[in-house]
């Protein structure tokens, strides 16, 4: 991964299992979001490829990539709702583009998706008329529009208060269990990492590589790497025994 001659990260090798919540964590500027952009087709890796179901993404023809993109749902850091459309139109647009459904069915599905994320009754609101947390949830509803196999979240907790952040974590777990979808989440929020993560990789800006990977709680309890431990304990104390937060 690089921007021009500046190498952000190299030798990244990780496997995401179907149905798990996969966390990409690390300090600011370590390349988490860049890795996510490469996974969702927004930036081509300098070398290597991303494999989905054993097929390379970037080496495949553009038509196949387009088809693959329709199995993705992406929640951006800012929500990235289309500001000129209502919430229902935001959710309904991908359905209108990729299905033959009549308008009335699309509107019904959009209402359902918004209800799933707790936004029943807000269908006709514009993104500017709702709060940041609601924008995030509406972004999630849009990401769910095409019933994706994989959901990618970029810093889902950014800009949210602790309660909203915790509710979003609960929603992610609920959707993982009910939809059976795979989640790839970029975050450095420790509470979220321990609450929702099934597997995590730790990107280190210093060595520009994957420094550790495994279950977040296992990493916290068993990792002997001081950099990983410092990150997972917020640098409070490396020597003190660490108790992971309870599962919600």
């Amino acid at each position: 991964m690089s921007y021009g001659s500046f190498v952000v990260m190299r030798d990244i090798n990780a496997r995401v299992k179907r149905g798990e919540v996969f966390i990409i964590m690390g300090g600011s500027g370590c390349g988490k979001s860049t890795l996510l952009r490469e996974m969702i087709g927004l930036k081509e890796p300098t070398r290597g490829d991303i494999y989905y179901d054993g097929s390379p993404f970037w080496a495949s023809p553009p038509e196949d990539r387009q088809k693959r993109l329709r199995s993705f749902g992406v929640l951006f850091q800012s929500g990235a709702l289309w500001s000129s459309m209502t919430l229902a139109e935001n959710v309904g647009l991908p359905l209108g583009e990729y299905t033959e459904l009549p308008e009335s069915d699309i509107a019904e599905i959009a209402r359902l998706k918004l209800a799933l994320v707790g936004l029943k009754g807000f269908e006709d609101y514009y993104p500017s008329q709702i709060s940041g947390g609601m924008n995030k949830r509406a972004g999630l509803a849009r990401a769910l529009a095409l019933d994706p196999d994989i959901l990618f979240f970029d810093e889902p907790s950014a800009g949210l208060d602790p309660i909203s952040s915790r509710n979003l974590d609960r929603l992610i777990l609920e959707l993982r269990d009910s939809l059976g979808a795979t989640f790839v989440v970029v975050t450095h929020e420790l509470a979220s990492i321990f609450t929702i993560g099934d597997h995590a990789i730790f990107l280190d800006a210093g060595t520009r590589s994957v420094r550790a990977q495994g279950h977040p709680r296992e990493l916290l309890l068993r990792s002997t790497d001081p950099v990983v431990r410092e990150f997972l304990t917020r640098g409070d104390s490396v020597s003190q025994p660490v108790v992971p937060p309870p599962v919600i």
Partner: protein
Amino acid sequence: MSEATPVSPLTFRREADGCFRLALSGDWLDRAHLPSIEIVAAELAKGGTATALAFDTTGLGRWNSGLIVFILRCADLCQSQRIEFRVETLPTSLGRLIALSQAVPERADAAITLEQPQFLQKVGESAQGVWSGGMGIASFLGENILTLGRMARGQAQFRGQDVLLAMQECGPQALGIVALINFLIGLIMAFVGATGLARFGAGVYVADLVAIASVREMGCIMTGIILCGRTGAAFAAQLGTMKVSQEIEAFQTFGISPIDFLVLPRILAMVAMMPLLCLFADLIAILGGFLVAASMLHIDPGLYMHRTLDAVSLTTFLLGICKGTFFGVVVALTGCLRGMQCGTNAAAVGQATTSAVVTGITTIVAADGVFAVLCNALKI
């Protein structure tokens, strides 16, 4: 809020054990200047080598960041002269701030190292920038041609209501400014023409002058420039803001072409509106010219209308409309191009807007020159 008072003079005392004690007294709130570290260096050099630098702060009043900077300079001086720096002789709060400012090492891991490039590197990077800029424009034009092809086959992904919205923005909402500018242009052309032509008794030809100049050149070029500053800039700002808020990336991740969805409606709107705006601009400019001709030269309205219709051929009229439509496409393309090329911060939106206007106006004027040469070659 207290008034800044001058920094108190420093006093020095050399102690028996070789320790150099610096007494800080009074208020250190001066924002104009700090005592020079050279004074301390000069005092240290007097009377043999000092072993340590300590502070006497019993007379120290209120202080601000200036004192911390001065003490840090003292610390640097001690380090360079291998003298012990006794930070513990400072008040606790001051000592803590000094320790804090020295505790965090500069992080270099996640930042790009800025190096002063060599001349050849600068030339190479500039050439690369020009090349990649050119490729970016070519790629954008290519994508638009593909989008037009998809639209012709009925496969382009865009909403009709977005076209109507853009039409309203670049059409009816621009009527006021288009009318004002073209009316003034008509007035000015007629006034300049009237003062010159009246001397030769050819005042009636003011109608010909205004009609041909407006319909063939000024109507379309002025409307193009006005829309470039108004609508082209708005397009760049809209798309730039969407880039900043990741809305364009959201289209891409759904496999929806942003060119189809965002650029095509704006181009279609401009193509639909520019001929009408040019026609409107021509009529308004002619009206402006008529007012001057009627008031200054007392030309009969019927005669003025007759001369106007006589002067403007269908070819001249269509040439003006075609040029205007082409300028409309230029405005839409440059506005959207700069918007899509926008960076991801607020300042980049301003740069994109400025760049859209500059690129648009330059392209319109250059294209008009090319049209003039072509028309001359084709005897139009």
